[in-house]
């Protein structure tokens, strides 16, 4: 008999689980304290009620139903209403704070089973959660009885026709599956939730250890808990590379740069602008937005380095009026301070804003600001998640990245993103005879001819202006300059530039 899957409707989880939980079976969810086991269990039920009209039963061993009703209100779940509609039932097995019972002779857990069966029948439950078994072990002195009764119960659950989740506490993040060895009773399916401290940042991940007889994606997947939505898993590698490729060109907002790129950016491309601080990255993203607005494109700008006021003032200094664009609905600016949140939350915020605003262009200034708030692993996942999400929407996006050194060098951001991006533009300081100039080159332009030279550019009140290519200078990219030929001092500067290279015929 093949195993069918029951979609949990927990955001992102069903992709990792290749469809959902094995239907009619028992799955163990193990995690350390604070790893969101209870949220996972409750969301399995809540999503069942909200999305699929499938009633559920929550057997609570630890927290009282009153506490749970109150706690989950914050996630937007109106459990009392569902109880009133007969879609949700609690079986309250939380410990009584009053006097401890006296044990006098042998016993079984017939009453617990009868109550669970009664609740399942009462609401016609398709989903069942037992949370959390550790507390249950503590209530009874005879561990042997508890184990054999638990084994009997998990067998009985299968005959009830419900898909069940059992949560259990584990001691270490990377040790035995659960503290009480519960897995031996429900060894068919095991999910592990982790909440690991990595470089002073908490990182939640989810791993399907096994689904007996059926498939799932392997490894740890980041997830986060979003107010109003609950657990949102981020199945990065599960995102398909199904993006169409467009050969429609759009303007970068700067005619000079359009020419360097062979006629502008592609409609669905991701462009990385990399350079040291002050080289003009924010200006490029500003022109990208202003140029879009001239063509009637709506832009979404995520700024992680500057405040709204600074951004608007800078833009005005280059002749772009962001306030008016916002008023016209052609621009939405989201300024957040990267340290105030986690990368997972930031990614979800970006995705949601993109869904909502449906922009024609997206600019992120700068990705590097996010780099410093998270471990490298998280940042890489974030970049992959972000680019996949944006590619999925088939809108052009311009990311900026800051290099560590003023002259030459590359950024960590580049290392993670360069293979994913379609175009890379490098901005560099060029020191020439005691003078700092700026140079720009198009390093990569997927699917198109582009200029291979490094051109000088200047910035003034009307924006960015490209000049001639540098000549007789090498090592600009690495930051280690050398000058070819020792020309006379008077003609030195002239020698630095050459005439424009030939262009391909216009199409």
């Amino acid at each position, binding site marked *: 008999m093949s195993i069918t899957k029951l979609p949990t409707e927990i955001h992102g989880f069903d992709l990792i689980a290749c469809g959902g939980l094995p239907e009619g079976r028992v799955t163990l969810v193990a995690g350390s304290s604070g790893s969101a086991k209870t949220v996972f269990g409750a969301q399995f039920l809540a999503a069942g009620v909200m999305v699929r009209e499938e009633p559920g039963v929550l057997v609570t061993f630890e927290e009282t139903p009153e506490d749970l009703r109150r706690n989950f209100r914050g996630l937007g779940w109106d459990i009392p209403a569902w109880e009133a509609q007969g879609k949700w039932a609690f079986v309250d097995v939380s410990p009584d704070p009053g006097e401890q019972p006296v044990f*006098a002779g042998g016993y079984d*857990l017939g009453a617990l089973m009868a109550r669970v069966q009664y609740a399942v029948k009462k609401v016609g439950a398709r989903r069942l959660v037992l949370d959390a078994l550790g507390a249950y072990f503590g209530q009874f002195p005879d561990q042997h009885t508890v184990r054999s009764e638990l084994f009997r119960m998990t067998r009985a659950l299968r005959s009830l026709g419900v898909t069940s989740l059992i949560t259990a506490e584990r001691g270490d993040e990377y040790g035995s599956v659960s503290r009480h060895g519960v897995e031996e009773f429900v060894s068919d399916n095991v999910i592990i939730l982790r909440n690991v401290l990595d470089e002073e940042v908490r990182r939640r991940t989810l791993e399907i250890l096994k689904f007996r007889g059926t498939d799932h994606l392997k490894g740890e997947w980041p997830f986060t808990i979003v107010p109003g939505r609950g657990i949102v898993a981020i199945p990065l590698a599960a995102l398909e590379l199904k993006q169409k490729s467009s050969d429609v060109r759009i303007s970068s907002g700067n005619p000079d740069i359009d020419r360097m790129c062979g006629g502008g950016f592609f409609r669905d491309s991701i462009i990385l602008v990399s350079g040291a601080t002050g080289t003009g990255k924010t200006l490029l993203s500003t022109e990208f937005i202003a140029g879009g607005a001239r063509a009637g494109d709506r832009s979404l700008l995520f700024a992680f380095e500057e405040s709204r006021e600074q951004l608007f003032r800078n833009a005005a200094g280059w002749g772009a009026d962001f306030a008016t664009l916002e008023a016209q609905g052609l621009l939405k600016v989201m300024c957040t301070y990267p340290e105030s949140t986690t990368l997972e939350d930031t990614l979800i915020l970006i995705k949601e804003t993109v869904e909502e605003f449906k922009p024609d262009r997206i600019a992120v200034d700068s990705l590097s600001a996010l780099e410093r708030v998270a471990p490298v692993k998280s940042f890489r996942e974030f970049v992959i998640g972000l680019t996949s999400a944006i590619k999925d929407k088939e809108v052009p996006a311009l990311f900026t990245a800051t290099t560590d050194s003023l002259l030459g060098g590359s950024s960590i951001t580049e290392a993670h993103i360069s293979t994913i991006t379609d175009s890379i533009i490098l901005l560099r300081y060029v020191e020439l005879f005691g003078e700092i100039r700026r140079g720009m080159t198009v390093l990569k332009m997927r699917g198109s001819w582009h200029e291979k030279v490094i051109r000088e550019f200047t910035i003034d009140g009307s924006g960015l202006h490209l000049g001639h290519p540098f000549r007789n200078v090498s090592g600009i990219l690495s930051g280690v300059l050398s000058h070819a030929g020792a020309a006379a001092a008077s003609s030195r500067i002239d020698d630095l530039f050459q005439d424009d290279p030939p262009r391909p015929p216009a199409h």
Partner: protein
Amino acid sequence: MDRYVLKLYITGLTSRSQRAVATLQRLCDAELSGQYELLVVDVLEQPELAEQDKVLATPTVIKEHPEPQRRIIGDLSDAARVLAALDLLASPTHAPVTEARVKEAD
């Protein structure tokens, strides 16, 4: 003496259930001289009562009256603990008699 109100939860008519019912009735008859009410609840038939009283294990005896309320879990084979839990071993003079009776009952 206060009238005792006891509730005994069992799961079906297993030998363990029947043993618990018989033991409790015998102890009550002997110690409470008929001054008690005993309600036997089969959780398979009335699971909603088990839910109300938050009963987990069977057999479970709940002493509802007199206060304080108390719970005894098990088939009641440990009679001395049952009597202690029901506050029927309160006076030292009373205790030996109980011991004797329990032995007799076994």
